[in-house]
């Protein structure tokens, strides 16, 4: 992150998801990041990352019980601060999932469906490994000269109601949502914190955008 003011990225810690890896990655790319586990810490972050690993209902239930939901809603929905959901942390932003019965947060119109019915049968599930992604529109994937690949682990994927929200897809025999963006809300099905130089570039770009947004007068430049 070359320019812009010093900002802090908050990584939401509600007991699931790879907070430690996310913090290591931000440390490596030279971006200040801190663990956000109390409601009052949410407002201190210039941008937020919502990780999530596990079964949909377990993840959503834990997040609702954490007390972080309401302050996050204020920051993201009302203040327009950038949010990056990772894996189930992205899936949770939609309305519901076939994997469970709990409602999602409903911030991105769409639902989560099982891969089983719509991918090449040769792809064993969970889909696990490095896959090349196809960018449909900017705003999530970084600008890189080489073809980008990321690490995925999942059996379910997001179906956006608004096709304009899909930023990138992965080809599992049919296209499956790999990244989304709606306003300042972003999500990746893959794990940038575990995707070597590609993840470095993606998270650097996320932090750079957050820094530029938090700079007063940035819109006048």
């Amino acid at each position, binding site marked *: 992150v070359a320019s812009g003011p010093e900002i802090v990225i908050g990584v939401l810690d509600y007991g699931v998801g*790879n*907070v*430690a*890896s996310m913090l*290591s*990655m931000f440390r*490596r790319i030279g971006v200040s990041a801190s663990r956000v586990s109390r409601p009052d810490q949410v407002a201190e972050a210039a941008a937020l990352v919502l990780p999530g*690993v*596990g*079964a949909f209902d*377990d993840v959503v239930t834990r997040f609702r019980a954490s007390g972080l939901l309401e302050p996050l809603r204020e920051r993201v929905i009302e203040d327009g601060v950038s949010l990056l959901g990772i894996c189930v942390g992205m899936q949770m932003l939609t309305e519901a999932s076939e994997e469970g019965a709990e409602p999602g947060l409903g911030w991105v119109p769409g639902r989560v469906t099982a891969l089983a019915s719509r*991918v*090449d049968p*040769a*792809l*064993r*599930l*969970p889909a*696990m*490994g*490095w*896959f*090349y*992604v*196809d960018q449909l529109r900017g705003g999530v994937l970084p600008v890189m000269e080489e073809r980008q*690949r990321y*690490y995925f*682990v*999942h*059996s379910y994927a997001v179906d956006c109601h608004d096709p304009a929200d899909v930023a990138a897809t*992965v*080809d*599992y*025999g*049919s296209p499956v949502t790999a990244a989304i963006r709606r306003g300042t809300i972003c999500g990746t099905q893959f*794990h940038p*914190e*575990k*995707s*070597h*130089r590609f*993840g*470095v570039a993606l998270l650097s770009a996320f932090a750079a955008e957050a820094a530029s947004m938090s700079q007063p007068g940035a819109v006048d430049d």
Partner: protein
Amino acid sequence: MTEVGSSFRARVIPCLLLDGFGLVKTVRFKERTYLGDPVNTVRIFNEKGADELVLLDINASRAHDEPNYDLLAEIASEAFMPLGYGGGIRTLDQIRKILGLGYEKVVLNTHAGRNPDFVSEAAAVFGRSTIVVAVDVFRSRFGATEVRVLSGTQKLAQDPVSYATDMARRGAGELLVTSIDREGTFKGYDLGLISTISSAVSVPVVANGGASSVRDFTSAIAAGATATAAASMFVFNGRHRAVLITYPSEAQLSAAIAVAGS
């Protein structure tokens, strides 16, 4: 197996063995050679862009030791790639702690064999993709196969295929199938074993034990493996088997394990 759109290449996974604090390499689960400091080795694999790493503590179950959390945390802070850990895991709390250190997967072996319900419980809480079951198989000179746990020292009653099927049904999201009798020998994977298990289960199967070159990866994938693991070929170099950490380039891997359609 690679006919999945245009986006896929099978994973190639260094499978590293820990003996307490140090990194070791075995032959047929015996004859330990000390390799060096695990943190530094992981750093090198990270620089080389390895697809994923699996760390197995081969002492923990026998010594009834807790996983070495401090070491695991230090390793994870150097690894910007997926990580799996196995060794001495017996409780859901241990799994939660390991995942919290920055690991995506845990590898169950001894406890899964003795208490298969634990696989179901762990998968229900942490999701299938987090739970890997290591299926260690010994093939006798006469061709008979048996599943073993506790670093290959204890035989289970079930045959490899029914054991693998049972573990997958209970919630294992991936099977790490290791040939005990080929491990560390550079003789190639047990392709018959890989083929039999791969066709019996629908979850990803990782072939392990015996790889000597990228050609072995090609053979394992052709036999039905979803991914391949290796250790000796990544840590030993040359006739005298000097310790040198290597990992194939993306070009070598793409050539050996074709990316379909692209």
